[in-house]
């Protein structure tokens, strides 16, 4: 067991748990924040993507011990009212089918727009290259990412 301090969506948290426990399960099982999804547990699908500072990380690949002192943003913390420009764009383009992969997609796009407020199509594809959407919502994800950039999703 280890005692680890970290910040989630601006709130300081102290976690007592197995230092090897991936952040994914810390969020989902210990903190009850289930917006971060499990899809593979192996860094292959991107469903568990969250932001470490401004960088996208796969929560299933970050052991609790490596999270100490860091600050994370999950889908629950992207906006207070659910109306972040990226969220608006996602609704405008009606991206979601089952929707399970979308929190990870949205946070990956958030990281992209933060570093490149007006990405090219290839940069959008590149950022999302390792994200699985088994329902096949990619055509709309592309559109929504472009719209999100126009709406100022990088700010």
């Amino acid at each position: 067991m280890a005692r680890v301090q970290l910040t989630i969506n601006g709130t300081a948290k102290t976690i007592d748990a197995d230092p090897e426990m991936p952040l994914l399960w810390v969020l989902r099982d210990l903190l009850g924040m289930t917006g971060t999804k499990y899809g593979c547990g192996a860094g292959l699908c991107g469903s568990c993507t969250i932001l470490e500072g401004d960088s996208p990380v796969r929560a299933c690949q970050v052991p609790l011990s490596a999270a100490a002192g860091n600050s994370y943003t999950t889908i629950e913390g992207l906006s207070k009212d659910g109306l972040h420009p990226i969220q608006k764009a996602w609704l405008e383009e009606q991206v979601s089918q089952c929707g399970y992969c979308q929190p990870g997609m949205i946070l990956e796009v958030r990281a992209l727009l933060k570093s490149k407020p007006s990405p090219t199509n290839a940069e959008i594809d590149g950022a999302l290259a390792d994200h699985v959407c088994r329902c096949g919502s990619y055509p709309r994800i592309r559109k929504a990412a472009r719209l999100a950039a126009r709406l100022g999703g990088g700010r």
Partner: protein
Amino acid sequence: MTSRRQFVKLMAASGGAFVLGIRFSFADDRPSALAPSAWLRMEPDGSILIKVGKCEIGQGVRTSLPMILAEELDADFDDVRIETASPGPDFRSLGTGGSGSIMRTWAPLRQAGAAARTMLVAAAAQRWGVLPESCSTKASRVNHAASNRSLAYRELLADAAKQPVPAEPKLKKPSEFTLIGTPRARFDGPDIVTGKAVYGYDVRLPGMLYAVVARPPVLGSKAAAFDATETMKIPGVKKVVETRRGIAVVANGTWAAIRGRDALKVTWSESPHASFSSDGEVAELETLSESPGVTIRKKGAGRRAIEGSAKTLNATYHYPWAAHAAIEPVNSTAVVKDDSCEIWSPTQTPNGVQALAVQLLELPESAVKVNVILAGGGFGRRLGVDYDLEALEVAREMKGTPVHLVWTREDDMRHGFFQAPSVHRLAAGIDGAGKVVAWEHREVSIPHNARRPAPALDDLKDPAKAIGNAWGVYDTPYGWQSEEMSYTGVHSPTLIGPWRSVFSPSSVFARECFVDEVAAVLRRDEIDLRLEMLGVNDPEMPRSFEIDGDLVERDRMVRVIELVRQKARWGTWHAKGRAWGFAASYFHTGTYVAHAVNVSLKAKPRAGELPFTVHRVIAGVDCGIVVNPDGVAQQVESGILWGLSSMKNRITFQKGSVVEGSYDDFPVAMIEETPPVIETHIVRWNAERPNGVGEPVIDTVPPAVANAISKLAGKRVRRLPVTAADLT
């Protein structure tokens, strides 16, 4: 009376995050609400609660089904709230599959909406002292134009509730629809993009424990003995429970359960299938395809006409095992008490889950509550109740404690059931004038054996039973002077069950590729040949025919083909290094689809990547009446990616075990492989009823692409998945 806000607070206080997706409850004792059927409850605050009687697996039923009722009710759609139905006396067929959700609830939902509307109009007419026929309805109001009076539905509920519920209310004509046929946003959209949507994996209950199961790696093996000493040392592990299928580790979190399972030492029994391999099984299917199976459709001299033809052609096609690989692995949560049980399952078969619990726990149906939870994809996998069974078995051992039983990605990839592999052997006979006069299509496959005992092979010798396994073979809309279709079923230790579009994808792949092979040999345009085989210039060929209860309408297929040909500007433009490919099909519930695709080969495909690029897809769909056109467009897009995925992955077996385990060795289509241009064209005509769309739209994608890449590679693609080696 509980107000809406109090109710939300109440449910939140009672603890479960699982209630987030379900905002309302139907309490029975509230006055002045109108609930003329189990589908509908109209509240005095103006909200209109509609029950969703199918499971949401990403296909949009939580939006499209309420639209049907709201249409006949003339409700303002903004007033509509939804609640997922649970199995019980009012809801006996919540099962979701076969692309049938809209088709099968169309009539009862319209009936329910129209009945309530009739009662509201009668109440208003009585209050005003006018004839009901002189009133009209719109946007949740009854209007009387002659006297310029109007009442909101919510003002009429108490009076309307006193009216008799009409048994056969007047329904609208499709031409009168104002909501059906308009694009509508998903109800769940806002919850999804904020992370609030609750899927099965997200169910959290007070005191809940988590479980994973160690299952035999080899087909047909069982746990002979196990040693949990090390498992019990893992902090958080609470208990180890034997189930029918394996050994469950129960812990206070997912991570501890997984680590506990890793530490478990299980001795698996010897299995007769320890040397089973998919290659061996495919060789057997191939051998069997050398002889015709049970005849399921025949005309003229059948296959014998081929031998006597001026020219004959034949080819054999292969289709692999495939996993569903829904992004949310299967899971189920259950709490078993002495006299009751409650289950939260992201299922496609809520009544099946209830029946399972009733049988296993020997409880009356009324004591088993099934909550249908959002599913992260379904594709037929969630028609199985194997994971619910595991949850119930463990929960029974943990009386009173909710047990959240989850499968990891590897569990999901290896221990579910699969799309059936098959071999298709096709032959055509061509006369001296270059006309295709005879056709044979033999299918050999493994019938479904996962949800019910495998059918006896003798049973499958009965054409009436065999036919249902050969969608896309027996019901091909094409016709010839002589034709013979046959099916052979094979027993297998591998588990086979429903998968998106079930029996169609392999048959349509083989058939539509073979049509192109014939066209190439005849130097005919492949669309022209298809139209000829649909008898467009043949007065002898009937315009429709019935087979196994299905009505196949050739002119609907012709119309879809013509539409796609025109929209693709077929034959009029070509880009260097690219080729067009085409395929068309009829799905057995009455939906017609065609795809034209523009494709190039990749010079140096990376490992795990499709060896070609699809630049443009033109899709045409005739699914009868369209309820939510944006939902249809979404399914068409989804079908393209699903079809492309089936060109890059497969499941294989070695030494009795599944080889693949995750998205690295069972890769699905990714964003960089997504065609940049997708056009969806829906055939608009005076259809009388809606048909399904989620499955039919996948079948023609692989053959259309295969037809294009075969031209580019100069050799025929006859096998899925397609590798770079197949194209050089």
